[in-house]
């Protein structure tokens, strides 16, 4: 619904804060902008409600360039929680929450009812807090009021700039849950800025990681955790979380494959092939060259078929490989392939043809035995498909 097209922002002092930003923010999702201090998160957010104008590029909401929308009308439709709470000190809590409804000329009763509803929503008893002034609230309570003030007029887009930063961890978790629940209920689009990766992972549908005014990576939390684009993202995710994740991750073919299956060079004779098969107790061999490039495979049947001809080499009887999986493929994908094509094994390659290992039914059995042995000790369940 929101689209940034080649947006640049250079402040008057010549400091380029956003560099060619291209970003799509999906409707009805929570999109979290995260990155180190000063990377341009707040700037990005303020571009959306036109508190800041881009130096170049355009921003569209529902395919409409916002530069053409009256900023005041635009802002009344967009809820905004500013980074520093920004409650009006001369207004009571009720008046603060009712600001936008009053601007929109709701009638008094409707505003009062809405105020009470919202206060209750964030665990502040309306009877106690309605008529207090912001200075009579704790920082955390003020922040809650700041959040619900943005929700007051049921906007279909809400911008939240570090809305929970002043809260203790418990209320913070509570409000995060509350936000996710609320968002699922009312299907608002939320753009949420945070410094806190845990918070991002918890609430985001899409995480946008920024650094020095550029987007480093964006995607679902799951995707970013599994496939961090670079070391910066990794460091941002944090080593601990990466490890924890690895534990829960779906196994990939590299975990399961036999790393030194029986291989032969194409220049070998058929007698050698038979001997090798006998020794390794296998019914086929993979054919590789000296650079470990996978050339094909030979089965015991092909060898025996031509065995009488002493001039024949492995190269003459081998068949090209039809199916292989890349290193890093999930085990599920490999299994599906084997089922679909009735394969008893499938080689794993790296890059274009470098042979690294072989998935066989036997290798899977032994992998799973290992896994369950670990389980019995660790008591944790691992997802195996």
């Amino acid at each position, binding site marked *: 619904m929101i689209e940034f097209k080649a947006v640049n922002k250079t402040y008057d002092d010549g400091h380029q804060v956003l560099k060619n930003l291209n970003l799509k923010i999906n409707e009805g999702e929570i999109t979290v902008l995260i990155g180190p201090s000063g990377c341009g998160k707040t700037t990005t957010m*303020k571009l959306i*409600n036109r*508190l800041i104008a881009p130096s170049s590029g355009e921003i569209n909401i529902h395919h409409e360039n916002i530069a053409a929308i009256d900023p*005041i*009308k*635009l*802002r*009344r*439709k967009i809820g*905004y929680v*500013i*980074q*520093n*709470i*920004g*409650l*009006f*000190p*001369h*207004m009571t809590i009720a008046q603060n929450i009712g*600001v*936008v409804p009053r*601007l929109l000329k709701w009638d008094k009763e409707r505003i009062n009812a809405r105020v009470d509803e919202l206060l209750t929503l964030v665990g502040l008893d309306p009877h106690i807090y309605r008529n207090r*002034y*912001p*200075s*009579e609230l704790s920082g955390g309570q003020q922040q809650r009021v700041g959040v619900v*003030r943005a929700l007051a007029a049921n906007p279909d887009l809400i911008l939240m700039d570090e809305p929970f930063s002043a809260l203790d961890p418990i209320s913070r978790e509570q409000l995060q849950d509350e936000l996710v629940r609320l968002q699922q209920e009312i299907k608002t689009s939320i753009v949420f800025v945070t410094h806190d990766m845990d918070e991002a992972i918890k609430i985001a549908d899409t995480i946008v990681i920024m650094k020095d005014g550029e987007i480093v990576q964006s995607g679902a939390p799951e995707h970013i955790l599994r496939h961090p684009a670079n070391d910066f993202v990794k460091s941002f995710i944090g080593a601990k979380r990466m490890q924890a994740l690895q534990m829960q991750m779906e196994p990939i073919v590299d975990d399961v494959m036999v790393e030194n299956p029986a291989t032969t060079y194409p220049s070998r004779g058929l007698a050698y092939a038979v001997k090798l098969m006998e020794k390794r107790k296998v019914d086929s061999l993979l054919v590789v060259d000296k650079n470990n490039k996978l050339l094909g495979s030979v089965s015991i049947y092909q060898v025996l078929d031509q065995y009488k001809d002493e001039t024949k080499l492995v190269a003459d009887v081998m068949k090209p490989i039809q199916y292989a999986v890349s290193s890093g493929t999930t085990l599920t994908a490999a299994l599906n392939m084997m089922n679909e094509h009735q394969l008893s094994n499938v080689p794993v390659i790296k890059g274009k043809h470098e042979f690294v290992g072989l998935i066989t039914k036997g290798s899977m059995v032994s992998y799973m035995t290992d896994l369950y042995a670990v389980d019995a000790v660790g008591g944790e369940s691992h997802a195996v498909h």
Partner: protein
Amino acid sequence: MKLETNGVLALLQYMSENATTLLGLTLEHIIMVLLGLALALLVGVPLGVLSAKHERLASVILSAANILQVIPSLALLALLMMFLGLGFKTIVVGLFCYSLLPIIRNTYVGLKEIDPHINEAGKGLGMSNWQLLVKVQLPLSLPFLMAGFRIAAVIAIGVATLAPLIGGDGLGREIYAGLNMRNSLKIYAGAIPAALLAIIADVALGKLQSKLKNKHNKPQPEQKQLPLTEQDKAMTA
């Protein structure tokens, strides 16, 4: 001791005998001051707002008001008299000129003192500039404006005693009459109410000011009164 007691008694007697005249003069004094202040608010607040919104204008407006303020009061009144003639109108304009600076300056400072995040919140929530000014900025700068008003009031009450020199009335009439006739009773009868007026205005407006300030602040140690600047003091002298 006895003489002093006699003096006070004589003064009280004089004042009660001439109560109607004195009350009339006091009332006139108050009216002049209020008119001058009202004009100053009417003109000063918008100029203060303008200054706060446009830094370039601010230096022009504030220096102009400053110049007005540093002209000695008698000289200013004399100058005004040349243009406006003698009378009530002239003294009101004079009082207006003297009240202008504290009001412009305090409106300006009050608006500048507002936490920029508050302004941003107002804008971000969709207030127009006018709504932001009326609903947020002016209410928040009210304690400052009140302080300016208080200074202006005290100055104006003082300057208004010069009114008779340019054909006005007020408590100054009694003082000048006393001076001319070398009648100290008359001088006291004019000067004491004028001083009381200034003190009452100062205290009452001071109370109002701290009430405004504390309305939305946590109870906190008594706010220090904004001290009069050297210049303000010189003016009231």
